[in-house]
C-alpha cells in the first residue's frame, strides 16, 4: 500500500508503506494456491447448484407448493439433473449471429463471476498441512475494486451476447440489462466509500478486521457500546448496498433484463444448451459473490456475531469463522430468494429512477455527512461546532426535500390544471387539438365516455436533451 | 524653434483628409474646396519652411525628435536638409495643381470624388513625411503606408478595366520591396543594438562615429541590398520597373503626376539618403552593377517609350529612362553628379507633372489616351498644344528649361568619374528627342479631323493648374540657383559622410566648386 498524499513541495514524494493486511498474502506455495483455487471454484459451482435448488424449494414453500423433490433427498440433485439435461440439448446457433462474439459472450460472462470471489475472506489465518495461510485466495491493496471491475466486465458478456444474437429482444434486453447494471454499480461503488473511510483500507481482510470485536463510541462524553458491523454503523450505506446488489445481479424485483412478459428472455433469448447454462450459472455465482461481499464489508465477515463471543470465547478460533461466514452468507442468499417470492417486478423507468434519482443523491449526501463528522472528530472540533454543523446539514437536507416536494407538487398541480383545461376545451369543442373526433352530437356517436384528451400541437414543446 | 513646422506640414493634409472623408456625400463640392484650401495652406507652410531654411546652416534643420516606441529605439524624428526640402516643396506644389486639374474629372467617380480628394491629401501627408523623416523606422512607416492611398487612387479611381490589376501589381511590387527593406531595417536595428544602444535615428546611425560604422562589410552588403531593391522598385529601375507603365496607364493623370512626379522620387531619394549614407562601404561595392542597371534603364525606357501608343504609358517609360539618369548621377559619386541627380528629381517632377497634366486635359476632352485618337490639336487648342510642347521639350532637356541643368550636371559629374557610361547615357538623350518630338508631331500637328474640331482649348482653371509648372520649368531653367543653393551643401555633406571626394584628376576641390559655378552660369 502506498500513501498517496501530496506533500507541500513541488515534487510529489511518496512513502512506500507495506500495508499491514497484505503481509500474510502472496507467500503461499503453489500447491496451496492450486488447492484454494480449486476450492473456490468448487464452492462457486456447488453454491450455484444449491442456490438454484434452494430457491425453487423455498419459493415453492412460500407459494404453498412442494418444489422439486424427485432427484436425491429433498430433490437436492435437481439442479445437477437440469445441468445434464441442458448439456444434452441441441446447441442452436441462429444463422444471423456474429459467431465468434456469440460463442465467447457466455465465457466472458462466467469468468469474471468466478474471479470476484478470489478476494473474499472466508476465514482468518489457519494452518493447512503445516502451512500458515489465510482462508482467502489472495488480497489486494485495491481489493474491493476487483469486485467492481469484475462486475463491469460481466456487463461485456451481456452486451456482446445480446448484440451478437442479432435479435431485437436480445438487443433490447442486453441494453436494458447493461444500463441497469452500470447504473446500480455507481450506487454500489458509492456505498463502499463510507466503509473505506472507517476501515482506512481497501483490502477485504482489513475491512473485516476493522469490524472485529465490539467497539465503544464516545459521544458527548459518555461511552456507549456500539456494534462493530458496518451494517449498523453505516446503515444507509448497507441498505443501499443491499438494493444495488439486487439490481446488479438482475434479480427480482429488478430483473427487467429478462422480463418474460415484455422481452422474452432478454439478452439470452437466443442462447440454448450449455451456453444458456453458463449465463445462468454466472447469474447465480454473482449472487453468491455480492452476498459474500455484503457479508465481508458490512456484516463483520467471518467473525462470530457479537452476542456469541460473550458466551463462547473460542468462537473465532481455528476454522470456526468459516462457519460464521457461511451462515451469514446463507442468510443473505435467503434474503434474495425471499425478495423474489415477495415482490412484484418494477417498471423499467421506476428502476432507473430509483437508481439515479434516489440512491445516488442519497449516497452523496450521506458520504459527505459521514466524512464531515469523522473529520470533525479527528480534528477534535468542539461540541458546539459539531452540533452546528450537524444542524446546518440537517437543515439543508430538510430544505432540499421540502423544495423538491414543493416543486413536485407544483408540477403535479400544473399538469392537473393543464389536463383539466384540456378536458374543458374538449368538452366545449370536440375538435380541440386537431384530433378528428366526430362531434358528440353526431347522430351515431352517442357514447357518454369522454374522449381521451389529446396533446395539442400548439402546446409549447417539452425540452429534450440529446434525443 | 517654437513652431513644429514639419509636423504641421504633415499633420495639416492628414487632418484635412480626415475632414474631407467625414464630409457627407452630398456636400462633395465643399469637400473639394476644403481639400484645395488645405493643400494650399500646406503649400504655404512649406514655403514658410523654405524661406526660413538656411542653406549654409547645419545639415538638418527644423529638427524635431520625440521618442515613439522606446523599446525599439524608434523616434518620431523629422528634419530637412536641402535635398529633402526641395522634394517636399515639389510635393506641396504639385498637390494643389493636381486637385485643380482633377476638379471636373470627378463626375464619374463613385462618390463624386470626395474619397479621391481625401486620398490625395493623405498621400501628401505621407509624401512630406517620408522626405522629412530622419528616423529609419519612421521613414519605413511612411514609405509603406504611402502605398495604401496610391493603391486606392489607382484601383478605385483609376481608368480602364485593368485598373484593379494594375493597382494590385503596383501594391505587390512595392510591398515585396518594402518587406525586403523591413528585413534590412530590422537588421539595422540589430546592428545598432550590437554596437550599443539600439536606435533608428538617422543622425546616430550614419557617419564615421555612427552606430553602423563598425558594420561588417558582408552584412552591410546584404542590408544595402535590402534597401536598394525596395528603392529600385520604387524608382523604378530596370528590371523591376514593369509596374509603372501599367499603373500610370490605369491611373488618372493627376494620380500619375503624383506617382511619377513625387512618389517615385522616394526611391532615388532613399538611395541617396539611406543606401549611400548608411552603408557607404557597401555602396562602393555596388557602384558598377548599379551603373550598368541604370544605363539599361535609360536606353530601355527610351526605346520602349518610342513604341508606345498610349500617352500615359509613353510618359511612364520616359520616366524609367529619366530615373536611370538620376540613379546614374547618384552612383557616380561625384558632387556634380549627385547635385544634378537631386536637381533632376525636382525638375523631372515639374516636367513630367506638366506633361501628365496636359495629357490629362486631353483625356478629359476625348476620353482616350491613345496617340491615334489625336491629330492636329494645335489648330483647335493652341494654348494646350503650347503647354504640351514646353513640357515635352523640358522632358528632352532642352537648354533653357530646367531639366537641362540637372541633366548636364549628371553628365559632367559622371563623365569625370566614369566616362564610358556617360557616353552610353548620352544615347538616352538622343532617343528622348525622338520620342518627345514624335509624340508632339503625331498628336498636335497635321490636319485636324472633324471629331476634334469642337475640342475646346484650355479653360482658366486648367491653365491655372499647369501654368505654374511651366513657369517654374522656364524659371529654373534660367535661374537654377534657388534650387542649387540648398541642394549643394547637402550633397557635399553626403559626400563627406560616405567618404568620397571628387575624382576630377586635374582639379582640386576649390576648382571643382568653381566648375559647379560655371555650370550654373550655363543656365543663365
Amino acid at each position: 500500500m502506498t500513501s498517496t498524499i501530496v506533500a507541500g513541495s513541488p515534487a510529489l514524494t511518496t512513502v512506500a508503506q507495506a500495508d499491514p493486511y497484505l503481509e500474510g498474502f502472496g507467500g503461499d506455495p503453489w500447491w496451496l494456491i492450486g488447492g484454494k483455487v480449486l476450492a473456490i471454484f468448487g464452492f462457486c459451482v456447488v453454491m450455484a447448484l444449491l442456490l438454484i435448488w434452494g430457491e425453487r424449494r423455498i419459493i415453492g414453500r412460500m407459494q404453498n407448493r412442494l418444489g422439486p423433490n424427485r432427484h436425491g433427498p429433498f430433490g437436492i440433485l435437481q439442479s445437477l439433473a437440469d445441468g445434464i439435461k441442458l448439456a444434452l440439448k441441441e446447441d442452436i446457433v441462429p444463422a444471423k449471429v456474429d459467431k465468434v462474439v456469440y460463442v465467447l459472450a457466455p465465457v466472458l460472462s462466467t469468468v469474471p463471476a468466478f474471479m470476484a470471489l478470489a478476494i473474499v475472506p472466508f476465514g482468518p489465518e489457519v494452518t493447512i498441512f503445516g502451512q500458515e495461510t489465510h482462508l482467502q485466495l489472495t488480497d489486494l491493496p485495491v481489493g474491493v475494486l476487483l469486485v467492481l471491475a469484475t462486475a463491469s466486465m460481466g456487463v461485456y458478456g451481456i452486451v456482446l451476447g445480446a448484440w451478437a444474437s442479432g435479435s431485437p429482444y436480445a438487443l433490447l434486453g442486453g441494453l436494458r440489462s447493461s444500463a441497469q447494471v452500470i447504473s446500480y454499480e455507481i450506487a454500489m461503488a458509492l456505498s463502499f466509500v463510507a466503509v473505506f473511510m472507517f476501515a482506512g483500507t481497501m483490502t477485504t481482510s482489513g475491512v473485516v478486521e476493522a469490524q472485529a470485536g465490539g467497539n465503544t463510541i464516545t459521544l458527548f462524553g459518555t461511552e456507549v457500546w456500539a456494534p462493530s458491523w458496518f451494517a449498523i454503523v453505516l446503515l444507509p450505506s448497507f441498505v443501499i448496498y443491499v438494493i444495488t446488489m439486487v439490481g446488479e445481479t438482475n434479480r427480482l424485483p429488478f430483473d427487467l433484463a429478462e422480463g418474460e412478459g415484455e422481452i422474452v428472455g432478454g439478452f439470452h433469448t437466443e442462447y440454448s444448451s450449455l451456453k444458456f447454462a453458463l449465463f445462468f450459472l454466472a447469474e447465480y455465482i454473482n449472487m453468491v459473490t455480492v452476498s459474500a461481499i455484503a457479508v465481508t464489508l458490512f456484516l463483520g465477515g467471518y467473525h462470530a456475531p457479537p452476542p456469541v463471543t460473550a458466551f463462547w470465547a473460542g468462537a473465532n478460533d481455528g476454522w470456526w469463522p468459516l462457519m460464521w461466514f457461511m451462515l451469514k452468507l446463507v442468510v443473505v442468499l435467503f434474503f434474495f430468494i425471499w425478495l423474489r417470492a415477495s415482490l412484484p417486478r418494477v417498471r423499467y423507468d421506476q428502476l432507473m429512477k430509483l437508481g439515479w434519482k434516489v440512491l445516488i443523491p442519497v449516497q452523496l449526501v450521506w458520504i459527505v455527512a459521514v466524512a464531515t463528522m469523522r473529520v470533525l472528530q479527528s480534528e477534535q472540533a468542539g461540541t458546539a461546532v459539531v452540533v452546528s454543523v450537524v444542524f446546518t446539514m440537517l437543515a439543508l437536507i430538510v430544505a432540499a426535500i421540502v423544495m423538491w416536494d414543493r416543486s413536485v407538487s407544483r408540477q403535479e398541480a400544473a399538469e392537473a390544471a393543464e389536463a383539466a383545461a384540456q378536458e374543458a376545451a374538449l368538452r366545449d369543442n370536440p375538435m380541440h387539438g386537431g384530433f378528428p373526433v366526430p362531434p358528440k352530437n353526431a347522430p351515431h356517436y352517442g357514447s357518454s365516455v369522454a374522449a381521451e384528451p389529446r396533446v395539442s400541437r400548439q402546446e409549447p414543446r417539452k425540452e429534450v436533451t440529446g434525443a | 524653434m517654437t513652431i513644429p513646422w514639419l509636423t504641421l506640414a504633415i499633420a495639416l493634409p492628414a487632418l484635412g483628409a480626415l475632414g474631407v472623408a467625414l464630409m457627407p456625400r452630398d456636400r462633395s463640392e465643399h469637400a473639394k474646396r476644403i481639400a484645395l484650401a488645405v493643400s494650399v495652406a500646406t503649400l504655404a507652410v512649406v514655403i514658410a519652411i523654405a524661406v526660413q531654411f538656411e542653406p549654409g546652416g547645419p545639415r538638418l534643420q527644423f529638427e524635431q525628435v520625440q521618442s515613439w516606441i522606446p523599446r525599439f529605439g524608434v523616434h518620431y524624428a523629422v528634419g530637412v536638409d536641402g535635398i529633402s526640402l526641395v522634394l517636399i516643396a515639389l510635393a506641396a506644389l504639385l498637390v494643389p495643381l493636381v486637385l485643380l486639374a482633377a476638379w471636373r474629372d470627378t463626375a464619374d467617380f463613385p462618390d463624386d470624388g470626395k474619397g479621391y480628394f481625401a486620398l490625395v491629401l493623405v498621400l501628401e501627408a505621407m509624401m512630406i513625411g517620408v522626405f522629412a523623416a530622419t528616423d529609419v523606422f519612421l521613414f519605413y512607416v511612411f514609405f509603406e503606408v504611402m502605398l495604401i492611398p496610391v493603391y486606392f487612387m489607382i484601383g478605385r479611381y483609376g481608368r480602364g478595366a485593368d485598373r484593379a490589376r494594375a493597382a494590385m501589381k503596383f501594391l505587390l511590387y512595392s510591398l515585396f520591396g518594402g518587406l525586403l527593406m523591413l528585413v534590412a531595417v530590422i537588421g539595422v536595428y540589430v546592428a545598432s543594438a550590437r554596437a550599443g544602444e539600439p536606435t533608428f535615428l538617422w543622425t546616430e546611425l550614419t557617419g564615421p562615429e555612427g552606430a553602423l560604422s563598425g558594420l561588417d562589410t558582408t552584412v552591410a552588403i546584404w542590408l544595402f541590398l535590402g534597401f536598394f531593391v525596395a528603392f529600385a522598385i520604387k524608382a523604378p529601375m530596370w528590371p523591376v520597373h514593369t509596374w509603372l507603365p501599367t499603373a500610370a496607364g490605369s491611373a488618372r493623370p493627376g494620380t500619375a503626376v503624383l506617382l511619377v512626379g513625387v512618389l517615385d522620387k522616394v526611391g532615388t531619394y532613399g538611395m541617396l539618403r539611406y543606401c549611400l549614407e548608411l552603408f557607404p562601404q557597401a555602396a562602393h561595392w555596388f557602384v558598377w552593377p548599379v551603373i550598368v542597371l541604370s544605363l539599361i534603364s535609360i536606353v530601355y525606357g527610351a526605346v520602349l517609350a518610342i513604341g508606345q501608343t498610349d500617352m500615359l504609358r509613353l510618359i511612364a517609360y520616359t520616366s524609367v529612362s529619366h530615373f536611370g539618369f538620376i540613379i546614374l548621377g547618384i552612383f557616380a559619386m561625384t558632387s556634380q553628379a549627385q547635385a544634378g541627380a537631386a536637381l533632376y528629381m525636382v525638375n523631372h517632377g515639374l516636367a513630367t507633372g506638366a506633361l501628365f497634366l496636359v495629357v490629362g486635359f486631353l483625356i478629359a476632352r476625348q476620353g482616350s489616351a491613345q496617340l491615334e485618337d489625336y491629330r492636329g490639336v494645335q489648330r483647335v487648342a493652341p494654348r494646350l498644344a503650347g503647354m504640351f510642347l514646353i513640357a515635352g521639350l523640358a522632358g528632352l532637356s532642352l537648354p533653357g528649361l530646367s531639366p537641362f541643368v540637372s541633366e548636364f550636371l549628371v553628365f559632367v559629374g559622371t563623365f569625370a568619374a566614369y566616362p564610358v557610361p556617360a557616353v552610353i547615357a548620352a544615347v538616352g538623350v538622343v532617343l528622348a528627342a525622338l520620342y518627345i518630338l514624335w509624340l508632339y508631331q503625331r498628336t498636335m500637328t497635321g490636319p485636324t479631323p472633324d471629331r476634334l474640331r469642337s475640342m475646346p482649348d484650355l479653360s482658366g482653371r486648367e491653365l491655372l493648374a499647369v501654368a505654374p509648372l511651366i513657369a517654374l520649368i522656364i524659371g529654373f531653367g534660367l535661374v537654377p540657383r534657388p534650387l542649387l543653393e540648398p541642394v549643394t551643401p547637402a550633397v557635399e555633406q553626403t559626400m563627406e559622410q560616405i567618404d568620397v571626394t571628387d575624382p576630377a584628376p586635374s582639379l582640386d576641390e576649390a576648382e571643382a566648386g568653381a566648375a559647379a559655378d560655371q555650370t550654373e552660369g550655363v543656365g543663365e
Partner: protein
Amino acid sequence: MLTAGGTLASLDPAVQEAPNIDYLMLAPMLVVFGAAVLGVVVEAFVPRAHRRPTQLVLAFVGLVVAFVCLLVQVRELPADSPGVTIAFATVAIDRPTLFLHGTVLLLALASLLLFAANRREAFAPQAATIPGSEEEREHEEAESEHTEVYPLVLFAVLGMLLFPASNDFLTMFVALEVLSFPLYLLCGLARTRRLFSQEAALKYFLLGAYSSAFFLFGIALVFGYAGSVHFVDIDEAAAAGGAGVVEQGEPLLMLGIALVAVGLLFKVGAVPFHNWKPDVYQGAPTPVTALMASGTVVAAFGGLLRVFFLAFDGLTWDWRPMLWIVAILTMVVAAAIAVTQRDVKRLLAYSSVVHAGFILTAVVAASPEGLAGALFYLAAYGFTTVGAFAVVTLVRVREGGAEAGELSQWAGLGRSHPLLAGALALFLLAFAGIPLTSGFIGKFAVFEAALAAGAAPLVVVGVLASAITAFFYVRIIVLMYFSEPQEEGPWVVTPGPLTGSVIGVGVAATLVLGIMPGPVFDHLLPQPAQEGVPEEASPMDMYVR
C-alpha cells in the same frame, strides 16, 4: 472517537500539512470557473424564458470580474521577482501569464459579444435534431436555442487561462482538454450547413484527441527522463543529465520533446499539423471561430512559449532546428495554399496558420525579445482576428440568408458599405503587416528577435511569405472596392451595438497597437534583460521558477 479497531495505516507525518493556496492569484480563473458552473446551474433551474438574459449577464459579469481581479493581481505581483507560483507550484502567475490572461479575457469578451449578437443566425436551434428533419423545423419555429453555449464558452476560457499559466505538464494537459472539449462541441452547432459543421466538429475532435495523445505520450517520455512533470524540475533534470533512472535517456527526452511539440503545434495550427484549421474555421459558427482563432491561438502559444522557454530552456539547441523547419514550412506552405482559397473563413484560417509561422520565428529566437515579440504579436493578431470575424458575421448571401462565405459574394462591398469594408480592409492590412497597424509592429517585433538571434534566413522566408499573404489579403480588398457588386450583391446586416462594438474594439486595438505600441512594450510585456550581453539573456528569466 470511534476507532475502527485501530486499523488506520500510519501515515507519513510530512503529508499532514495543509497546502497553502493564494486564492487571489487564482482569482480570475476561479471567477471564470465559478461563472461557468453557475451557468450550468442556470441551465438546470432557471425557466427557459429567462435563461438567455441570465446566462449572458452571468458570462459577462464573470469575464469582467475576472478581468478586474487580473488588474488587482498586476498590482499585487511582487516587483522584485517575475511572479509567484501557487497550489503546489502547479500554476504560475508571472508577467507573461498576466499579459496573456488579459488578452484572452478581452478577446473572450469580444467573442462573447458575437455569440450574443448572432445567437439566432449562427447556432442551430437544437443540435440534436437531424438536419432537414421535421423535428428541426419544429425547433426552429419554437425558437429553441442552446443557451448552453455560454457556459461552454466560459469553460473554454477557463482552459485558455489555465493553459499558459500551468507550471507543470499535468496541469497543462488538463488545461488543454478543458480548453478543447467545449470547442469541439461548439464547432458542431452551426445553423447553416449543419452537416459540414458536424463533420468539422468530428474532424476537429478526432485530430485534437489524436494530437493530445501525442502530447501526453511526449509528457510520459519526458517524465521518464526527468522524473517529474514540473517544468522547473525538468529543466534541472535536463541540466543534470536526467533523473538517472533510464540509462542514456537522451533519445527518450528528444522524442518526448518532439511529441510534446506535436501536441502544442497542433493547437497553434502549425504545418504539418494545420489540416484541421480550415475545415473547422469554416464549419464552425462564426462566433465560435472568432473565439478559436483569437483566444485559442493566444492560449496555445502562451503554453508553447512556457514549455519551450522554461521546461526545455537548457535544450534550446536541440529543439531549435525542429522549430526552424516547422516555422519555414508553416509560413511557406500555408501562404501558398491560402492563395488558392475562395472562402473567406478558410482564407482567414490559412492566414492564421501563416501567422502561427511568424510567431514561431520568435520562439526560435529563444530570447526575452522573442518572448515579448511573440506576446505582442498574439495580442495584436487576436484583436484583429476577432474584428475580422465580426465583419464576417454581418455579410450575408441575401437578406436573411446564410453568411456569405464565397469570396465572390463579397464583390462591391466597399461601394455599398464603405465603413464596414473599411474596417475589414484595415484588419486585412494589419494581417498583411502594413505600418501603422498592429500587425506591422508585431511582425517587426518577432522578426527583430529572430534576426537578433541569428535566424536571418528564417526572417527572409517570413518576409517572402508576408509578401504572398499580402497578395490574398489585397485580393479581398480588390474585390470589395474595385469589383462591381453581383446582381444579388452581398446583403449586410446593420451591425447592432454588440457586433458594432466588437468591430470598434478591433479597429481601435489594431490602430492603437500599431501607432502607440510603446506603453504596451514598456509596461505590460516582459522587459529584456537589463544587464549583460543580449545574446546571453535567457527568456527563462521572464518566468517565475
